């Protein structure tokens, strides 16, 4: 075995805390003198706020403070800080509300019941305005204007193009054009959004909160509250899930902080499950129009795409989703000519934003569905059409990005073998496949941070114990363990020698946080650099003692410092540490590392790849779908934490299959109809298929030890593979998500009528 730590199935470093109930989440934080807050939300999708009377609420015994937009600095904030016009959301609306659930006031009281009662006593006078709920309506001339000065409610447009699409279509033997519709999806973190804010008379604000990026929340709170950035401390030790919903400023954070500043007492706000469904953010719904030209042997010639996304009321992270859906719609294939035009359109609905896969699950569902339709019409095997167009190592996407490592062809081979091994399927079973790719962290800096994207510090103490300081955020995906493993491997010690310090902006170096599948590669590179720097210092002392021939190298592995050419010549890591610290006049050994991508194209330094096969059974009488097998061949470079990768894979299948056929957010006049865990159906244990994974290992030159992402990309293929499986099983093609039994049944009836009519 080449490595002593990485690629070994080790327990998560916070595992014992989690299985014993000792892990303390923000939800569990309780401070002396703490008050409880609640947020009053708009019942209208679009209305002017004429007047708010809080006097009755303030007089209710037990109520300590009520705040409205008038108590704020009126900052229109957003996470795209580099583009002020895209910072469009006040957390407490002052003049206008734009979706049902938008916060208009907040109360702090001695307990939650009193705060809740006080909400009923706040009198808000609204002037309801005409509202619009669908992007295809909102973009029309004469539609209600949601933001002043935004013509036809077009919030953001994105254009991506290479080659000569119009010319190329003339060379195509076959052209196909389709509309698809992709639904929204709720993140459904088990821990709802929550925060405990404590402002003290010395002007310092401490906020415990459930977030994917303590740094972003620190900056956004400082900005909106008029505080100095480092007078705001954000602590987020254990996080009960994020999935893209927890890296923007939310109402629990902002309102609890505002109330605490008014009272100089700690205030806790926990969103209810209903608020979580109706007043946070969601996966971006999209309309896709795709025109694809191919040669009759299946070679891709050109693709032209137009996408209209339902942005909801504010920009949030939706501008990134708009770009990424357009980029990843080309994945994982060599399109010689490609043109994408995306329009993000405001509507009077809950804002849409980032969710695991970040626009790519929609893109891949559409693309992989249409590729199967084309393959079928041309009589080409689904594996074969993908194989002849597949991305390969060192492929350059013209003007956009360079792929380095890429194990896609091997993934296709493995899945082809598995499909063959299944032999003849039982009736009404079908196997569909989808290929995908994803980024290992984004290169974009819309947040406009002046810091490196990731940073780390390693400190070695006298007993050999290593303190690893990172700003990377573990939201359950296991990044603390993965990064500790990288540190241990590079330094040549054991995982138990590493102690991770993170999730506290007073202690941790800045890191952009856990989104865009960035931690393994970006924070991993920073950690490896810091560990290497500390190791170099240790080896200087070891060299003085061991006095190897100058042409020989020393290294450290498994707590031994050794001569690489003659490994039997070795001394104890612990002895070297003791001598080194003594020799440095008592200073601990400190190494620093950082990572910011430079000259790595427009999107990401590295890309993961994979192919997934979904075997589904469809009941032709009811249209009901049952998942039988989901098999994935996956290239995430060098696996660092095998238990972690496997967990990410199986978890992604559950979430992405939910997106494919059970989860939906139906609305009526902007009101979400199923804001609870009974009517919103995420998969339960009994719904899970058998899962199998083939790791296709490649070495990514840009990643730490050759590693790349293994988090979000795995959410990309399932909906598309499922749509293809349903088509194979019963011969109907569903082009709008989710693939509900109603839609399947309706399509089966239409198919039957058509066949009988013939």
């Amino acid at each position, binding site marked *: 075995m080449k490595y002593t730590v990485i690629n070994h*199935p080790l*327990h*998560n470093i*916070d*595992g*014992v*805390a*989690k*299985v*014993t*109930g*000792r*892990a*303390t*989440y923000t*939800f*569990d934080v309780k401070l002396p003198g703490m008050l409880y807050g609640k947020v009053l939300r708009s019942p209208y999708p679009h209305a002017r706020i004429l007047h708010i009377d809080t006097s009755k609420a303030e007089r209710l015994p037990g109520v300590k403070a009520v705040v409205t937009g008038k108590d704020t600095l009126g900052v229109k904030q957003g996470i795209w800080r580099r583009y002020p016009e895209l910072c469009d959301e006040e957390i407490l609306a002052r003049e206008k509300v734009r979706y049902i659930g938008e916060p208009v006031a907040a109360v702090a009281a001695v307990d939650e019941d009193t705060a809740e009662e006080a909400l009923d006593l706040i009198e808000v006078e609204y002037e309801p305005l005409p509202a619009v709920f669908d992007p295809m309506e909102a973009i029309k001339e004469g539609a209600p204007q949601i933001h002043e000065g935004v013509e036809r409610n077009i919030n953001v447009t994105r254009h991506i193009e290479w080659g000569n699409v119009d010319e190329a279509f003339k060379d195509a033997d076959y052209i196909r054009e389709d509309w698809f519709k992709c639904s929204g999806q709720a*993140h*459904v*973190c*088990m*821990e*709802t959004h929550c925060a405990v804010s404590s402002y003290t008379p010395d002007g310092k604000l401490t906020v415990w909160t459930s977030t994917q990026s303590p740094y972003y929340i620190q900056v956004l709170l400082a900005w909106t509250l008029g505080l100095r950035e480092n007078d705001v401390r954000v602590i987020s030790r*254990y*996080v*009960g*899930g994020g*999935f893209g919903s927890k890296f923007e400023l939310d109402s629990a954070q902002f309102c609890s902080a505002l109330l605490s500043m008014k009272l100089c007492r700690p205030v806790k706000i926990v969103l*209810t*499950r209903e608020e979580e469904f109706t007043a946070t953010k969601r996966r971006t719904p999209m309309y896709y129009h795709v025109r694809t030209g191919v040669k009759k042997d299946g070679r891709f010639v050109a693709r032209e795409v137009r996408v209209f996304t339902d942005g909801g009321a504010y920009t949030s992270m939706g501008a990134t989703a708009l770009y990424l859906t357009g980029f990843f719609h080309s994945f994982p294939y060599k399109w010689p000519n490609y043109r994408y035009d995306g329009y993000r359109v405001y509507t009077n609905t809950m804002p849409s934003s980032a969710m695991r896969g970040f626009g790519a699950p929609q893109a891949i569902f559409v693309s992989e569905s249409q590729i199967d339709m084309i393959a079928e019409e041309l009589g080409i095997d689904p594996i074969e059409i993908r194989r002849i167009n597949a991305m390969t190592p060192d492929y350059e996407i013209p003007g956009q990005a360079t792929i380095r490592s890429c194990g896609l062809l091997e993934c296709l081979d493995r899945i082809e073998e598995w499909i063959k091994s299944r032999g003849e399927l039982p009736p009404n079973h079908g196997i569909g496949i989808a290929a995908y790719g994803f980024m290992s962290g984004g290169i974009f800096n819309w947040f406009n941070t002046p810091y490196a994207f990731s940073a780390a510090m390693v400190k070695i103490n006298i007993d050999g114990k290593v303190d690893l300081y990172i700003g990377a955020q573990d*939201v*359950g*995906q*296991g990044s603390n363990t993965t990064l500790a493993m990288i540190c241990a491997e590079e330094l040549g010690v054991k995982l138990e020698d590493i102690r991770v310090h993170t999730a506290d902006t007073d202690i941790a170096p800045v890191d952009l946080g856990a989104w865009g599948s960035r931690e393994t590669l970006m924070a991993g590179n920073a950690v490896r650099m810091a560990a290497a720097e500390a190791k170099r210092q240790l080896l200087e002392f070891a060299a003085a003692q061991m006095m190897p021939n100058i042409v020989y190298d020393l290294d450290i592995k498994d707590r031994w410092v050794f001569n690489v050419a003659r490994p039997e010549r070795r001394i104890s890591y612990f002895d070297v540490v003791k001598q080194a610290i003594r020799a440095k006049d008592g200073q601990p050994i400190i190494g620093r590392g950082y990572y910011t991508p430079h000259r790595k194209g427009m999107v990401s330094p590295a890309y993961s790849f994979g192919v997934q096969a979904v075997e589904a059974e469809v009941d032709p009488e009811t249209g009901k779908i049952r998942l039988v097998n989901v098999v994935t061949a996956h290239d995430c470079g060098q696996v660092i934490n095998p*238990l*972690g990768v*496997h*967990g990410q*894979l*199986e*978890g*992604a*299948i*559950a*979430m992405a299959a939910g997106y494919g056929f059970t989860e939906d957010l139906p609305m009526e006049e902007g009101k979400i109809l199923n804001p*609870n*865990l*009974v009517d919103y159906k*995420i*998969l*339960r*244990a*009994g719904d*899970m298929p058998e*899962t199998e994974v083939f790791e296709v290992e490649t070495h990514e030159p840009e990643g730490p030890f050759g590693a790349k992402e293994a988090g979000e990309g795995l959410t990309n293929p399932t909906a598309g593979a499922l749509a293809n499986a349903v088509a194979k099983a019963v011969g109907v093609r569903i082009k709008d998500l989710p693939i509900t039994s109603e839609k399947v049944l309706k399509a089966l009836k239409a198919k039957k009528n058509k066949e009988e009519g013939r």
Partner: protein
Amino acid sequence: MAEMHRLRIRVNGEDHELYVKPKTLLVEVIRDHLGLTGTKRGCNSGACGACTVILNGMAVKSCSVLALQADGGEVLTVEGLAKGAELHPLQRSFLDHGAYQCGFCTPGMLMSAKALLDENPKPTKEEIKEGIHGNLCRCTGYNSIIRAIAAVAEGKYEEAER
């Protein structure tokens, strides 16, 4: 102010006597009165299972049980699973199988699993799935949890049980 009622309850082997309102929930007694925050709340409507504890030998959703309904009863929460530093076989198996990620559903999941194995020490895979049907997990996709419970049922952690 609502009238307070006396509640006698044994939690993780310790006897408690406290006074609660009639509408106080069992989960509120566990978390807020006794400070045992290992038990979570994810929905307050009995749909997610994060608040699952064992009451008189049965897995219950403690957000859907009034504290006074548990009067005189015996409750086991996640904090009562390990004996000192010695983890329960289910806890060890969850660690080995990576059967948790964010960890928020884990305490409830462990209690459902324990109640299942107490009643049915050799469950089939389908019975395991049924046993944790009421516990939602958004991270793991359940299969690692099912494998972890099955490993305990197969006796792989028996030496620790004694």
